[in-house]
């Protein structure tokens, strides 16, 4: 793993990375000092969506399986973290990872039937699965049904154990740490043999199979990590808002589609594309919502309409996303291997 870190941090891209990381580490302190909770919350959302969009992209960008159902993993992760904390007193420090793991297992279980489907069919089925999960959680009493679950406020001395802090500042560092972890796992993964197998499956599943690659097996690997980190994203949501309900966490538009837009906007053939996409997309959507829609509530829906315009523009004009576009224009150095990033 060490040589991957070294490799990742060398060169011009590595310098960009360090600068960005430094800014990210300092920014919450500034938001906190200046009392800018809105900006801090937007940053947290950016990070949360970065984690999830990157995970989503392992399935889409690398493996070619377009999922509109990542809300399932997000929701399962969020609920697992909450239930462990609420019913069993398990600290979210463990619960977030447990949530990721449960989401990953759900992912594997869903993968068995879903990966028998290809292209359109897979995308369609993921939408249906998302709706099924929402409906089931609405009528499942153990998880609080449609009322959802809220964790109680804990005494001061248990704050660290239950990870309860006011505002988003602490959670930004949590999310940064988890994003770092994701990079540490994903980067070696996509540069390993598995990563190239996945891309082979994306390009031509039958050809990949004829070369002795078992598409199902490697799709399942991709699904595992994709669901794992999306579930972890759900865990962050739980500790941050300390409230989950089926309508918020299993929402097709504000979870699944947002993840998809963030990923596609950033560029699905780029490793860091989804992060860039999240940091562009989430602030736009938040800004439009708070400063435009609130002023003109009569025109509610306009903010999602704007997202539609953005999405259409990308898919028609720059299907390779921001990172792909930057590389094409020569602002970014392409990776030596070419195939994966270009």
């Amino acid at each position, binding site marked *: 793993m060490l040589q991957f870190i070294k490799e990742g*941090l*060398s*060169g*011009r891209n*590595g*310098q960009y990375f*360090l*600068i960005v*990381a*430094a*800014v990210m580490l*300092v*920014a919450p302190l*500034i938001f906190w*000092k*200046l*009392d*800018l*909770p*809105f900006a801090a*919350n937007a940053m947290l959302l950016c990070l949360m969506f970065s984690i999830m969009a990157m995970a989503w992209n392992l399935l889409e960008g690398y493996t070619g399986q377009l999922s509109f159902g990542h809300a399932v993993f997000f929701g399962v992760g969020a609920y697992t973290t909450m239930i462990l904390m609420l019913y069993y007193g398990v600290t979210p420090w463990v619960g977030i990872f447990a949530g990721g793991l449960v989401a990953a297992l759900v992912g594997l279980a869903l993968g068995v039937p879903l990966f028998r489907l290809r292209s359109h069919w897979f995308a369609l089925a993921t939408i249906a699965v998302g709706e099924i999960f929402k*409906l089931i959680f*609405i*009528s499942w009493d153990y998880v609080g*049904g*449609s*009322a*959802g679950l*809220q964790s*109680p*406020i804990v005494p001061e001395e248990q704050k660290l154990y239950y990870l*309860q802090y*006011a*505002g*988003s500042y602490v959670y930004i560092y949590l999310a940064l740490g988890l994003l770092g972890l994701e990079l540490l796992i994903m980067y070696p993964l996509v540069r390993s043999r598995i990563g190239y197998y996945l891309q082979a499956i994306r390009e031509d599943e039958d050809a990949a199979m004829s070369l002795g690659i078992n598409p199902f097996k490697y799709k399942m690997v991709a699904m595992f990590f994709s669901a794992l980190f999306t579930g972890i994203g759900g865990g962050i*949501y739980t500790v*941050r*808002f*300390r*409230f989950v*309900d089926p*309508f*918020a966490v299993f929402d097709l538009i*504000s979870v699944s589609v947002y993840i998809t837009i963030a990923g596609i906007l950033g560029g699905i053939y780029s490793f860091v594309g989804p992060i860039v996409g999240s940091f562009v997309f989430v602030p736009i959507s938040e800004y439009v*919502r*708070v400063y435009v*829609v*609130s002023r003109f*509530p*009569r025109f*509610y829906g306009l903010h999602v309409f704007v997202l539609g315009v953005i999405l259409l523009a990308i898919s028609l004009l720059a299907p390779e996303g921001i990172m792909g576009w930057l590389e094409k224009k020569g602002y970014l150095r392409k990776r030596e291997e070419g195939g994966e990033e270009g």
Partner: protein
Amino acid sequence: MERYICKAVDTIRSKVVALVRRRGLSKSLLAAIVVIVVIIVAAAVLMMQGGGGAVKEVKVGVVLPLSGKLAETGADLKRGLEFAVEEINAAGGIKSLGGAKIVLVFGDSAGKPETGAAEAERLITEEKVVAMLGSYQSAVTKTVSEVCERYHVPMLNPESTSPTLTARGYKWFFRTTPHDEMFAKQHVDFVNWLNKKYGNQIKRIAIIHEDTEWGTATARAWQKYFTQAGYQIVKVVSYHAATITSMDSEIDTLKAANPDLVLVASYVQDAILFVQTAKQRDFNPKAILAQDAGFINPSYVKQVGKDGFYIFSREVFNWDLGQKIPKLKEVNDRYKAKYGVDLNGNSARDYTGAWVLYYALEEAGKKASPANLEEFRKAIRDALASLNIPGDKLIMPWKGVKFDSNGQNTLGQGIVVQMMEDGKYHTVFPEEFATAEPVFPMPKWSERG
């Protein structure tokens, strides 16, 4: 000073650029450090420019669904609050604070719990509000009140009815409106009253409800209290309101259970569908009793037409209450002159909420000053906890406002209304507020004109 900053930034930038051009890991680290320093300096400069002012006004934060599907309701609630605050300020503001004016600062929840929480944080830390009002949907109120509890900011909730809100042992949360369990208990009182009046015709009860938190909690409370009161629950049917396109099977299941009374918890579209299908399937219980929401929504009233006659609904407020509550008539006249619409259950509850908060602010002003925010918020909390407002000071059909240790107003109550042949709801229960005699049992569909 700005010139110096600009110059400094320029120099640093050129150095950074130079460093980056030369590449190399250690140098890029250096560059990162430089960037950090720049940001910190900029932040420090920004911070120095802050400043405070004298206490001429007291800010109160409000989180409401100002956009989204409930924007119409949100606008209504906002009007109720603004109207009350205008009256309070015109009458001399908070006298114990030398006539300081109340200023409402609004945040939009868009109907989402997480957005509401983020907005509450913004209002509390950025706008430094002394107290919070809102937030209509129970799910949003849950997260907003949690933020308030954490920051030790008193929150007064005039209009969310989920029983769980006041079952959390919060110290900073107060609710003036009765909640769904209290309403369910009142439903039992009403049915007992009907039975006494018309000779025990109601024994078998069926329930149909939509499956979000509100409908589910209501149905659960109904089951509990009606069973306790000795009624037989013969059928409970739930459905998913967002996607329902036909209610034939649901109504038939109810019909097969042959109930005397049907209790309904529905939103607008499904309420209309329910009434239409009941007519189509010739389903004739002796009475239909709804839990407000869809059934009292103006678009339901407008669209259901004569099929909605004789249906009972629980309400918090009704247009004809002015005949029984003189203060209400007076306020409503002024409100109507200003906005061109009558007060309704939502705007009246928020109007009342703002006044209740005002009484607490008066009390708090005697003990603390908003200059010390923390102390003042605590004083408001204490004032709310010991508040006791008699019913005649309110425009609501309540016995008054007095909070229990969970922050629930124990003196609130609802009313029961029935749609009569003029297409309007009339108050029929409790007797002290009634303006009409109930029609019971409701005529069969086949006997109607």
